[in-house]
């Protein structure tokens, strides 16, 4: 094996996080105090040693590009290879591709120039710590053409409704991929296969007027590929709605989840040079995640504070997620609220959302 080539395909990710995705795509949504959703997929690829990663984007990718830059935090600022953000750019007059195949067809140079020979293909709605080296070992052991990654969940959640399910036989091969809601093997929108076979399948799909690579080449499997199912047993969160965003964020306050997601192979993200968080004498902080640059004088309970949040003395933040650089002035009370970046909550203001349906405030507003 020569190495991994990463493909992060955002084409099928809908911007369903209300105010949080008004101005950014889902992949750029901030998560867990200092990350954006894409950091998890990128970090997993980084730890697998992927040298070439392409990112297929179609809309609302400005903040994503700002976040990624040249890819230095993920070790992707390379002379050879590295990170390629590939927005739509279709100029081939003979091009007949449609759907996500357009991205692949119109960026064939990326695949030809990349040095790796195994494709890792993912999205960004699943936050996890997949070890792709281990997936590849399994892929080889099974002698599979494609290995799809799934997680058997104990309890089905509303956010799993939009996920595909993977049926696997005793020998570990996939017998069916479907969307039957009562099935617990959730497909994590991640598969690996050899680059040669991947491109062969792309050409087949285009020649047959297909428009959705995973569905048309793998799920429907017209060419009878040997598809293995790799069971991932670690932490996985599906973020595809405000409710799932809120619930999965809050779940990180459980030390077991925090450890699984963060302790080994730290997730990489854009570096900011904020000072460490400061707790004033009046601070009362319990069961919360606090990023750097925060200054806390008030009460913070069961909440997540992103970088640079100010909670003044006498302010209360409960069961809430406060994104970068928000200011909560004294006397303000927030409960079950998600504040997007740069929101200012003025003195004595009270905002209370529903436990299951938090109140979301769009970025750069003052209330």
């Amino acid at each position: 094996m020569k190495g991994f080539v990463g493909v992060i395909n955002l084409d099928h990710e809908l911007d369903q996080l209300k105010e949080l995705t008004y101005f950014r795509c889902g992949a750029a949504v901030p998560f867990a105090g200092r990350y954006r959703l894409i950091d998890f997929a990128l970090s997993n690829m980084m730890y697998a040693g992927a040298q070439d990663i392409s990112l297929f984007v179609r809309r609302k990718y400005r903040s994503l590009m700002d976040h990624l830059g040249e890819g230095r935090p993920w070790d992707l600022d390379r002379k050879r290879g590295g990170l390629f953000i590939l927005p739509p750019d279709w100029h081939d007059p003979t091009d007949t591709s449609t759907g996500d195949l357009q991205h692949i067809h119109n960026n064939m140079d990326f695949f030809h120039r990349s040095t790796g020979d195994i494709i890792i293909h993912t999205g960004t709605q699943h936050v996890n710590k997949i070890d792709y080296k281990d997936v590849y070992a399994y892929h080889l052991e099974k002698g599979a053409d494609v290995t799809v990654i799934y997680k058997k969940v104990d309890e089905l959640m509303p956010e799993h409704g939009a996920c595909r399910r993977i049926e696997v036989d005793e020998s570990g091969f996939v017998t069916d991929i479907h969307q039957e809601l009562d099935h617990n093997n959730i497909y994590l929108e991640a598969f690996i296969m050899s680059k040669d076979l991947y491109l062969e399948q792309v050409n087949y799909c285009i020649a047959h007027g297909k428009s959705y690579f995973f569905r048309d080449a793998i799920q429907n499997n017209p060419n009878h590929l040997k598809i293995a199912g790799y069971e991932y047993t670690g932490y996985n969160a599906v973020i595809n709605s405000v409710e799932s965003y809120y619930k999965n964020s809050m779940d990180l306050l459980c030390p077991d989840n925090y450890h699984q997601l963060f302790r080994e192979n730290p997730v990489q993200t854009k570096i900011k040079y904020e000072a460490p968080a400061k707790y004033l004498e009046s601070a009362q902080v319990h069961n919360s995640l606090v990023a750097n640059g925060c200054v806390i004088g008030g009460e913070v309970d069961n909440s997540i504070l992103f970088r640079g949040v100010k909670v003044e003395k006498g302010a209360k933040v409960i069961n809430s997620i406060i994104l970068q650089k928000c200011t909560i002035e004294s006397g303000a009370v927030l409960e079950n609220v998600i504040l997007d970046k740069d929101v200012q909550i003025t003195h004595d203001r009270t905002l209370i959302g529903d436990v299951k349906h938090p109140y979301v405030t769009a970025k750069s507003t003052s209330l």
Partner: protein
Amino acid sequence: MSKKEVVAMLLAGGQGKRLKDLTKSLAKPAVYFGGTYRIIDFPLSNCANSCIDTVGVLTQYEPTLLHAYIGVGNDWDMDRKNGGVFVLPPHERQEGSSWYQGTADAIYRNLKFVESFDPEHVLILSGDHIYKMDYQKMIDYHKEKNADCTISVVNVTLEEASRFGMLNTHDDLKIYEFDEKPKNPKSTLASMGVYLFKWDVLKSYLIKDEQDPASSYDFGKDLIPLLLGDNKTLYAYPFEGYWRDVGTIESLWEANMDMLSEAPELDLNDPNWRIFTRSPNQPAAYIAPSAVVQDSIVNEGCIVHGEVKHSVLFFNVEVGEGSVITDSVIMPGVKIGKNVRIHKAIVNEDMVLEDGAQIGVERTDEKEIMLVTNES
């Protein structure tokens, strides 16, 4: 290399003996400060924020960590095509080889390096101090006074003066005498170890000083008196603001504690004057339901179950349930078990404190700062 108006030379080779075991295997400029920084971040960030993009860093004592830390300098925006940061350890030459004999000797041995930028002025900095300073303002002052050398000074009390290199000046701040740690100080202007020279003047005096076998080749002790003796124009530049030499365990502890006040004199959170550092990129700190964190600085990667009051926790520190930490500085990666009590201590990097450990509780001297290292 193309011409630069100002080249900075940062003296980072000192051992910092009085920091005891904290500098056992790293140079003083690499010592941690303020929950996430190393001391050298301050002069490097000052350069970056003052638009000085060419910095030579002179290393000698335990340089490996420092070299790796600075790397290509990208964290301080010094990975430049033209200029940037250059690490300059002593090196073998045709005339023979030796260590840097003193601060002036270190610059003398890198004359060719400075010369390659053909600078007008050379700024001499040290990697020992905590401060934020706009060097451009000093450069403007230096040019306005048409000085051969300008030395940045802070006001200290007469009692403190005997610990510093003092500058005796006329009313217009023109320097007539340098007084190293005077018993009977005549002035309250202490040198900050920040010197700005006209390059041609500095160069000729470095060469002159080097001829003197009796010299200790030190800026304060030898070079400045040599310039004064020749009636060169030296001015003191009064610096206003927070400046601390953190050369001892006590002063390092105290400066860390200074950061805890509600509006510290040295604002580490100023978006217009960031202190850049190599980020450990750790997850947001987790403050457990049982935790109490007040009057403290807690960096990312920390997991706190116990009580932290009036203390500084660097990244990746864990504090177990029932533990109480007061008036202390806990360096990166320290694991503190359950029911541990730490009072008025500096706990060195990566230490593991077992459940029930007691540090600094029973003490004979309330003022003493306990230093906890693998050696102690």
